[in-house]
């Protein structure tokens, strides 16, 4: 793959959600200027799009830039070319993750994986479990510390009946968890076929 020959651009167009929009960017930089996270990430959307055109596959897919998107849609609203920038960012993140190129310890990626497995198990998000998974993501000691720090919030949630400890043992399920799982599996299958993934 050589620079600026469009191979990676074509790959993105074929395999990334909304990737066919990348070529329409006119490099005005309004997205970069509009992003509230602007100073905090490695590459602005404008730059990511240019890197894709320049054929920087490795750099783009291993970057943590698109994981930093908070979906505020400021860029989408302002883009003079009406590019669905937020969707492209998530599309790129998903694509990098599926290829196994996404940075392993990137917090957003880790949370997303946790969230997805939590959700798909019962068809509902088990909040208590999710919170505990997040607290203890960096080991038992760190988790206990975080747990202790948040104890007041937890107790008040308990008092207000906004948190039920029994959910840990007897989680709520949706009526047809198996059905949901089958549906998601089918969707994944269609998506995989469309984006050229074998699994």
């Amino acid at each position, binding site marked *: 793959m050589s620079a600026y020959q469009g191979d990676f651009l074509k790959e993105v167009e074929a395999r990334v959600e909304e990737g066919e929009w990348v070529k329409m960017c006119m490099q005005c930089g309004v997205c970069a200027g509009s992003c509230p996270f602007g100073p905090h990430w490695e590459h602005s959307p404008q*730059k990511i799009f240019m890197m894709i055109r320049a054929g920087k596959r490795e750099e783009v897919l291993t970057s943590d830039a698109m994981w930093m998107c908070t979906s505020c849609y400021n860029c989408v609203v302002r883009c003079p070319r009406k590019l669905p920038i937020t969707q492209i960012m998530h599309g790129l993140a998903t694509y990098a993750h599926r290829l196994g190129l996404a940075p392993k310890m990137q917090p957003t990626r880790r949370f997303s994986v946790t969230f997805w497995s939590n959700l798909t198990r019962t068809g509902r998000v088990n909040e208590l479990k999710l919170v505990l998974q997040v607290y203890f993501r960096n080991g038992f000691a760190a988790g206990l510390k975080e747990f202790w720090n948040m104890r007041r919030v937890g107790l008040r949630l308990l008092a207000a009946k906004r948190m039920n400890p029994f959910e840990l043992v007897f989680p709520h399920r949706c009526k047809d968890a198996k059905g949901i799982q089958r549906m998601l599996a089918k969707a994944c299958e269609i998506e995989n076929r469309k984006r050229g993934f074998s699994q």
Partner: protein
Amino acid sequence: MKTAAYLCGGCGIAEQLDTARLAAIAEREGKVDLVREHPFLCSAEGVQAIREGIDKDGATHVMLAACSRRAKTEAFYFPDVAVARANLREGVVWIQEKGEAAQEMADDYVRMACAELKRMQVPKAGPDTGKSKRVLVVGGGISGLTAALEAAEAGYEALIVEKEAALGGWAARLHRRIPERAPFKDPAETGVPALVDAVTRNSRIKLQLGTTVAQTAGAPGRFRVTLSNGRTEEVGAIVQASGFSLYDAARLAEFSYGKSPDIVDQAGLEALAKKSIPIRRPSDNKEVKQVVFVQCAGQRDDSGKHLPYCSGHCCATSMKQAMYFKDANPAVDTVVIYTDLRVPGNGEDFYRSAQAKGVTFTKGKVSAVEADGAVKFRDLILDEDTQIKADLVVLATGQVPNSGVNIDNPDEPDANGAKPISILNLEYRQGSDLPRLAHGFSDSHFICFPYETRRTGIYTAGPVRRPMDIAQAVEDATGAALKAIQATENAALGRAAHPRSGDLSFPLVRLDGCTQCKRCTVECPFGAIDEDEKRYPVFNESRCRRCSTCMGACPVRVISFENYSVDSVGAQIKAVGIPDETEEKPRILILACENDAYPALDMAGLQRVKYSAAVRVIPVRCLGSVNQVWVTDALNAGYDGIMLLGCKHGDDYQCHFVRGSALAAERMSKIDDTLKQLALENERVITCEAAITDIARLPRLIDEYAQTIERIGLSPLKGFA
């Protein structure tokens, strides 16, 4: 001469001023034969009263003391008599509180108008009335063909002189053109064969191919053009559509043009596309797989070595050319390296279409193109040096106008280093070609008066006027053709062209007083004045725009116009009643350009902006028409200050007569000597630049100047005149 004065009482004039006193002044001091007051002069009855004064009482000179000369011009239209206007509305009642100061102002304006009136004559129209209505079009490209066809379709004869053996110019060499119609998505047919066909079949258009203009003499309505084949043609106006040459890519050593056949300019790519689609590269005739377009090659250059400007069409042209590849085979990689994409007109749609077709646009600055096709550049988004290996490189070089000889520096080579060849070979004292505006383009003002060159009756159209694409050239040529028609019609009636359109006055010269100093022939911004064999000036009235710059220049004051002369303004200056020094009432003379400063003052009046009652404003055709004797006379008469209000001059001038305000500034820079001789302060005479939009600023400037005069005190020269 029978004079009549009509004083209007409307629009608040009668409420604020003592009109009986004004009438008395007109009668006793102005010595007007017939003085009438009317409460509403621009009404049907008021106009009727004036008409009766002319028809029944035989008035030949009419003074109207009412509103500004720029107002109610339709009601007060009396072309058969000389008309002077005293501006009591915008000039007095709208800018002053009721009182003695305002009344004195009005008194003076009536005195001034009466004085001017007697020194005016009804213009009889220029005697230089060539009757030819034919339009000569120099150049047979898209611009020239369009201009000729538009003139012919409007009913005028046209003659096309083209130096090549065939019509069509650059456009005929194109494979396709940038689209001019919605949806602006794909390259379009050039349309040249149809245009050439329409021109060839039009009975009003004559063609002279393989011919150039050997000599152009005369003036609008009577240009005598000698062609290189010896023929002589009489034409009324000229459209110069001599087009452009491509900037020579060989001057860009770093881009290896000429070192490899696979590095071409945009014209080279068109030739390849005409030869075969899909495009094959010249070196080995293989189909091109990777092409790189280098934008701004030798353009927008700040090093001083190449063209400093943007040629406007090249971005869209490169998009079009990239589509030649993409439309034939989407697998071809096409990269456009640009610093700023500029696509005027409907180019944004075309740009989007190119992106949708997969043309890659990369913001970068190319530093070098190797002979093997490696394009080295800095990616300006990723901020890194990088390179692309291409089979074919296209350099987007710019347009160099074919504007002939630089008359200010006849030996100066053009941007390509070529020796300039005159296009029109004008038999004008000031040089063989059209004066230039910037970078060799023959124009006089981009914004205010396109097509108008500084040679009356000669209009430029297309890329010789400014860089442009086909769509703009077509529009340009249409405009220029209409301007040319207008010029022939005006010339036939002895009337001025833009900006004093329709003016029938023309310069009158008392040659027995001329000292042959040449200032008029040198300074005329429009090259209207030649010299005869005895070195006397020869005025070609049809070339004259009536700016009166010659009148301002003439040291012996032998040049005048029937209704505007050194005397007519001088008499106004002298008519103002200068209070003696014990009264402590300063008088400031304002000579205001009628194109910008005077309308701005009128608008200030319309908005009721108040300013000093010490000023007496006299509109002048152009600051260039201000003769220094007016300044000296005013100072001697005891005026305390003189303000000259004219248009901006310099590179981005706003002067309607191009050089007038610059010449005035030049002349006034020498006024200090006069002031010193009279033992006066430098502040007594100031020159200010004013635009028509300075409605709020001008009154402020005037008040500030009035304060300055108060500070330095009254003129010591009162009571000597």
